[in-house]
């Protein structure tokens, strides 16, 4: 990840890991396990991230200022262990929106040439 902040469009295309983590944080702040569960659910189990991949990607997203740490608190749904929560930054939200726009254009183009979606 570059040290200098780029425009949202310059950050594209996102890797699948980055895209899904940003997507997981789009509606709520989450801790690592919650992010991993969200990704597994939204991809029907196709993407199952290991701790190394998840936190390596989180580290890069923090460096690129697309996400930030929120606070540390227990998750009432799990146990009383304190967990570090993350949330999207405004820049991260713009990058996610830019990537979704890119996907939308691709789907629109595919449909225009007769490629049916599953």
């Amino acid at each position: 990840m570059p040290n200098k902040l780029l425009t949202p469009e310059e950050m594209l295309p996102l890797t699948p890991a980055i895209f899904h983590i940003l997507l997981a944080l789009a509606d709520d702040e989450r801790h690592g396990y919650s992010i991993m569960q969200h990704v597994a659910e939204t991809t029907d189990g196709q993407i199952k991230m290991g701790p190394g991949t998840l936190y390596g990607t989180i580290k890069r997203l923090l460096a690129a200022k697309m996400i930030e740490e929120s606070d540390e608190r227990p998750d009432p749904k799990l146990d009383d262990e304190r967990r570090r929560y993350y949330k999207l930054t405004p820049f991260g939200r713009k990058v996610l929106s830019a990537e979704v726009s890119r996907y939308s254009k691709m789907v629109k183009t595919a449909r225009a040439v007769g490629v049916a979606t599953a």
Partner: protein
Amino acid sequence: MISVSGKIYRQLLRLYPQAHRRDYAEQMAQLFRDQCRDAWRAKRSTGIVKLWLRVLPDVAKTSVMEQIAAIERNQIMKFINSKNAPTILLIVGLVLAASSFSQLIMPVHGLFVLVIMAASLAIFAKAIIELLQPSSEWWKTAIRTFVLMFIYAIFMPAWAKLKITGAIPNIPFSEDPEGIAIVVSLFANPIVAAIKLLQFLIQRRKN
């Protein structure tokens, strides 16, 4: 089994760089415990085994990536990647070239001395161009420059000396394909370097 797996995973976390472990080891261990718990609930021992089959490649791949990233952040690598590096390579290359000239203080074959000096200076000029106009790939040119200077400094005077002492028979050039090849290679690089220098000067004039 969850507890044992957790302990083993903690040991595997040592493969990651210290800075990464300091910031994320607890969270990674916590996530792994959560995954173990889910795997055990779903499929007991089979689930744990399947989890390990996923996690081990993840550890192998990401620990290497993090180590490489840590090395790139290391101060020594920063220095090597800095603008000082081409200068250092040049100085080392010139010292090697200069040390080889002492083998060729032979009045009869002053031409070889001149040619080798011209080659070294041309390579030097090529490296200066890269120093002044560094591209993202300048380090490849710097390494090539250094290697070429090393080869010229060591090999060419040795070959010339063998020629002088008669260890390699002095046969006419036209019947000496090795000699022709060596002389051509000797001139090729300085010609390329001279062209590059000319291009650089023209570019500067335009800017």
